[in-house]
């Protein structure tokens, strides 16, 4: 590896890129358009039965059991009782793909029987407005039924049970906050993939790789220059998306250094993957096909625009096989939930995938004929 040669090649990439307005548009402006677009579409996604995680601090009192049984009977939710403290429940939900939950407080049954007001707390997922709405509807329905049965004496009904809501992550987060890591992930995926798949196959077809093979530039240096370029571009793109989200939509994203590794490893992976697609294909057409087959599922199934937890279980399994899922999930953990352990796990997965893909790409990438 020679830094001067990588630098010289980087200058060529920079000029090629900045002199091509369409490439620049797709990398930097397109995600901004998508923020607005998908913000609108967001609430229309329906789901089936949602798992509702429940912390029952009333220690299995008959009233609480009846309450949960009534919830199950709505068929909108499926109750799953978990053994977590109410204080850490929000963070616990953040680690799960289906972050909707309910806390039944200590003394729920006793207060209910005595006619003293008592509140249950519903945790909703702002990233998944549809299932959150359904869960809230189901809980409110059951609460109304309980209030009717318990508290109507002499024609006057005083509600006993109330519903508090809390959002997973932070109560003040909105849809736009969850879209930002997704859209940064979208940029990390699409800019290098589309570009590398294209140039790796057309440069070979046009003989440009053969010409470069006659210079001291190595394949590793060539690929490294592209990685450096797309890392830089990702930083600019992330800054624009975050700036636009915060400035126009008042997004509350936490900017911290934990984001940086994802902005480096993400492009590293997708430059290598794009190169690999081009290297294993005989023609630019085949390369584009392989590239699209890999890119499009990732574009929609990795948590870019739609939360993975809103998918049917089979599709969720597919999502967990996609490297971009871990990039976006990691950025979510860093920017919204401050869950370092999970972010590090995500980072480790992407890093291993990147190193393997990079080595494979350098090995299979031929710039002269055997």
């Amino acid at each position, binding site marked *: 590896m020679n830094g001067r040669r990588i630098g010289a090649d980087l200058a060529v990439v920079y*000029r090629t890129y900045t002199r091509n307005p369409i490439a620049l548009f797709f990398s930097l402006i397109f995600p901004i358009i998508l923020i607005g677009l998908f913000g609108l579409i967001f609430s229309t996604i329906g789901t089936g039965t949602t798992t509702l995680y429940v912390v029952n601090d009333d220690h299995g009192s008959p009233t609480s059991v009846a309450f949960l049984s009534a919830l199950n009977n709505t068929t909108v939710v499926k109750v799953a009782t978990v053994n977590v403290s109410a204080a850490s429940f929000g963070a616990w939900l953040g680690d799960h793909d289906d972050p909707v939950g309910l806390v039944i407080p200590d003394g729920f049954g006793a207060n209910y029987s005595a006619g003293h007001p008592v509140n249950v707390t519903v945790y909703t997922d702002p990233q998944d407005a549809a299932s959150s709405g359904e869960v809230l509807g189901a809980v409110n329905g059951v609460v109304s039924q309980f209030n009717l049965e318990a508290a109507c004496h002499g024609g006057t009904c005083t509600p006993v049970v109330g519903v508090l809501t809390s959002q997973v992550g932070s109560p003040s987060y909105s849809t736009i906050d969850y879209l930002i890591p997704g859209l940064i992930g979208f940029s990390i995926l699409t800019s290098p993939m589309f570009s590398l798949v294209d140039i790796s196959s057309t440069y070979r077809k046009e003989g440009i790789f053969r010409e470069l*093979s006659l210079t*001291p530039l190595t394949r590793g240096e060539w690929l490294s220059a592209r990685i450096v370029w797309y890392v830089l571009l990702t930083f600019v793109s992330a800054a624009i998306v975050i700036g636009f989200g915060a400035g126009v939509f008042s997004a509350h994203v936490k900017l911290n250094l934990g984001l940086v590794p994802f902005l480096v490893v993400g492009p590293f992976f997708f430059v290598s993957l794009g190169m690999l697609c081009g290297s294993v294909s005989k023609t630019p057409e085949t390369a584009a096909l392989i590239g699209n087959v890999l890119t499009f599922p990732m574009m929609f199934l990795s948590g870019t625009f739609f939360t993975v937890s809103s998918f049917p279980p089979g599709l969720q399994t597919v999502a967990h096989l996609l490297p971009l899922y871990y990039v976006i999930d990691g950025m979510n953990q860093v920017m919204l939930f401050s869950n370092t352990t999970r972010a590090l796990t995500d980072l480790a997965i992407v890093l291993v995938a990147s190193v393997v893909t990079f080595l494979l790409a350098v090995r299979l990438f031929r710039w002269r004929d055997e």
Partner: protein
Amino acid sequence: MPTAIEVRGLTKQYGELVAVGGIDFEVPAGTVFAFLGPNGAGKTTTVEILEGLRRRTGGTVSILGLDPWTDGASLRRRVGVLPQEFRFFDKITAREAIEYYRTLFGTSVDPAELLARVELLDKAEARFDTLSGGQKQKLGLALALTNDPEICFLDEPTTGLDPHARRALWGVIRNLRSSGRTVFLTTHYLEEAELLADRVAILHRGRIIASGTPAEIVRSHGRPARLSVEAAPALAPLLVRDLGVSARAADGRVEVELADRHDALRVLAAIDRSGIPWDSFSTEVDTLEDVFVRLVGRMDEGTLKAEAPA
């Protein structure tokens, strides 16, 4: 004179197809060698093997004492290559391209000076995708010279160039030769080979069918000199009968083969004596192109065998 390029028993097969069928030649350092042949003869395959771009099937190749396939890394600093139909990054200017190669090779060549050498200085700031075909070839040549190479491989460098640009490129090749560089040239243009090359090899279907200096090839494969006279066809049988020469009539002219220079005088005297009216006359000798066309034609008819490998 040391040998720059030495090729022995070189073969290249693609499955059943034999692209290069066992060829031998050597190129002394500081000379211009032209590789000629019809389309599909195996010229580009051969030159790409010499450049290290293609792996050979058999035989040995030595470029400056090195194997181009396995010693590519050290060789590429010492050779320059202009591929057929040179392509480069569309949005990069000619000057930037030279600066890029200069950094890759770690040399200190002046882009303006190099572009002036190939007569492209006026296009220094033009992006590659705005250059004409000939200008692209010139840039390719400039890039091939960025590392001041000991050997230049030029694969059909003048194809698509206008006559003026072609002459400019000939000048560059002559300068390379006079500064002690070796030039390996493939070309369709026979007069180019005749003008520039010290030695020539004619390739046909993967085999060398003639090699040597252009003059040697014309001498050994060309027809004898001919005297062509504008006269009635009846003159031909008369000359055959009176002088015992080979003569034939076609297109209002009579063509007589001359065994040596003195034959010309005898034939002219006989024509004058015959009383048959005649007008202009000229002598004709084969050019390398005539020889090439005849050799390739005879190969295709199967009446000529390739030179046996040494």
